[in-house]
C-alpha cells in the first residue's frame, strides 16, 4: 500500500466515522484514565466493558439497539461498583472482579442460548471499524464536549480530589460527587468506545496513555496533556495499521500503545542516564 492509497482511505465514510469517534473516545478515555490510574481504579473500565458485553448480548437476543441497552446498564453498574467500594466493606478490585466475571458469564450464557458465537459476537468482543454509524458520531461529539468541559471547569477540584482525598474532605469538598462523576463519564466512554475497540480491549484506552505519560512527566497538568496526546496518536496509527493488516481494530491500537509505552520508558531511561531534566 502506498501513500496515495493510504490517503484514499480517508475518503471512505465508514473510516472517517470510525476515526472521528475513535479520536474523541481516545481523548476522553485518556483524561479519565489519568484520574482512574492515579486513584488505583483503572480496572473499573475493564469491569464495565464486561458488563457492556453482557448488555450487547442481551440487546442482540431481544433485538433492540445496542447503545440503548448498554448505556443505562453500564451507568447503573458503574454507580454500584463505586458505591460498594466506597462503603469499604468490599475492596474496589474485588467489586470490579465480581461484576466483570459475573457479567461475562451472563453474556456468554445469553449468547450461547440464542445466536451462538457468530461474527457479530466476534466483532464486538474484539472491535470492528465497521460498527460506527452516524448516531455514534453525534453521541461521541456530545460526550467529548461534556467531558472536556468537566475537565476544564473542574480541573482544580479533580486535582485535589485525586491527589489527596482526605485533604479534600477536610476542606469540605464533596469528594463523593467527583468520584461518581468520574465513574459516570467512564461508563459512557466505555459504552461508546467498546464496539470499535472491542469489549475485551476498551479498557486499554483508559490505562495505557496515563501509565505511559506518567513515566516522563513531573506535573499533573503535564500528565493530562501528554496522556491525551499519546492516546490520540496511538489511536490514529493503530486504526490505520489494523485496517492495512486487516486485524481487529482494538488489538491494533493496543499493540501501538504497548510499543509507545516501551519507547517512552526507554527515552526516560536514556534521559536519566545522561542526566537531562525536563
Amino acid at each position, binding site marked *: 500500500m502506498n501513500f496515495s492509497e493510504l490517503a484514499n482511505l480517508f475518503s471512505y465514510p465508514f473510516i472517517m466515522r470510525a476515526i472521528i469517534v475513535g479520536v474523541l473516545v481516545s481523548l476522553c478515555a485518556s483524561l479519565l484514565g489519568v484520574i482512574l490510574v*492515579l486513584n488505583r481504579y483503572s480496572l473499573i473500565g475493564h469491569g464495565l466493558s464486561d458488563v457492556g458485553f453482557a448488555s450487547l448480548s442481551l440487546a442482540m437476543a431481544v433485538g433492540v439497539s445496542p447503545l440503548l441497552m448498554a448505556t443505562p446498564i453500564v451507568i447503573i453498574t458503574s454507580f454500584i461498583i463505586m458505591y460498594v467500594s466506597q462503603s469499604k466493606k468490599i475492596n474496589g478490585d474485588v467489586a470490579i472482579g465480581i461484576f466483570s466475571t459475573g457479567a461475562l458469564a451472563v453474556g456468554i450464557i445469553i449468547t450461547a442460548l440464542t445466536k451462538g458465537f457468530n461474527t457479530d459476537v466476534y466483532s464486538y468482543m474484539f472491535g470492528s471499524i465497521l460498527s460506527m454509524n452516524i448516531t455514534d458520531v453525534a453521541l461521541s461529539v456530545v460526550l467529548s464536549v461534556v467531558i472536556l468541559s468537566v475537565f476544564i471547569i473542574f480541573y482544580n477540584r479533580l486535582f485535589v480530589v485525586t*491527589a489527596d482525598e482526605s485533604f479534600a474532605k477536610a476542606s*469540605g*469538598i464533596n469528594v463523593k460527587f467527583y468520584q461518581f462523576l468520574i465513574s459516570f463519564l467512564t461508563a459512557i466512554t466505555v459504552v461508546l468506545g467498546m464496539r470499535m475497540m472491542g469489549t475485551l480491549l476498551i479498557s486499554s484506552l483508559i490505562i495505557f496513555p496515563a501509565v505511559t505519560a506518567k513515566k516522563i512527566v*513531573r506535573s*499533573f*497538568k*503535564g500528565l493530562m496533556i501528554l496522556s491525551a496526546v499519546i492516546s490520540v496518536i496511538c489511536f490514529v496509527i493503530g486504526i490505520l495499521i489494523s485496517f492495512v493488516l486487516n486485524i481487529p481494530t482494538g488489538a491494533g491500537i493496543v499493540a501501538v500503545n504497548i510499543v509507545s509505552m516501551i519507547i517512552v520508558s526507554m527515552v526516560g531511561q536514556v534521559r536519566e542516564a545522561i542526566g537531562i531534566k525536563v
Partner: protein
Amino acid sequence: MNLIEIKNLDVLYKTGYRGISALKNVNANIKSGEYVCIIGNNGTGKSSLIKSILGLVSVSSGNIKLKCNKNEISYIPQFNTIPLDFPATVHELVLSGTQKSNMGLPFYTKEDKASTEKAVRETGLKGLEKRRFCELSGGQQQRVLLARALCKKPRILILDEPCSGLDEKTTADFYELLLHLNTQHGTTIIMISHDLINVEKYATRIIKLDKAILFDGSVSEWIKKRNDGEPI
C-alpha cells in the same frame, strides 16, 4: 468565643471482629485565638479527636459543633496522604490548598496565587516550586503540606505531629511561624505534639488524652502540677 464545641464525644472504630474504642466521653470547647496542644502517648486517641473535628472519622455518640465554616480550617495530617508516585509539582500542590468548598467555579484567583507565593516563601520552599513532590525529602514534603495548609489563611490550623521529620532549624522556624500566626493574625491553633519543651514554651492550653481527657488547662496550671509532682 467558642469555635469548636465537643460534647460527650465517643469514637468507636469497627474492625472486622470487634470494635476499638478510641475516645470515650470527651468534652472540650476551643475558643478563638487559642493555641492548644494535645499530648498523650501513642494510640491514646489524639489523631481520632482531630479527625472527628474534621469529619474524617464518624462520631459514634455525642456531637461536635463547628462555629465557623469548614473552609476556614486547615489541616496537616500526621502521615502524608498523597500517594508517593503522584505526579505533581510543589507549586500545584501548594496552590490546591487555596480551594474553598463554597466558591462558585473552582478557578484560582490572583489572590490565591499571591498567597501561595507567600506560603512558599514562609516555609522555605522557594526554588523548589517546579520540583516533583515525590522526589523531595521527607522534611521538605512536610513543609509542602504546611505551605498548602497556610495558603488558605485559615482561621483554625489543625496539625497532627507536624514536626516529626523536620530538622532543628526548620522546627524552630516552624514554631516561630505558628506563634506569629497565632499572635499577629489571631489564628487558632490545635496541634498534636510530643515535644513537651516547645509545647510548654508556646502553647496557651494543654489537653492530655488517654481515650478520655486526663488534663485540660492552661500551660501555667500544667507547669504548676508538674512542679508539684502530681501525676497526670
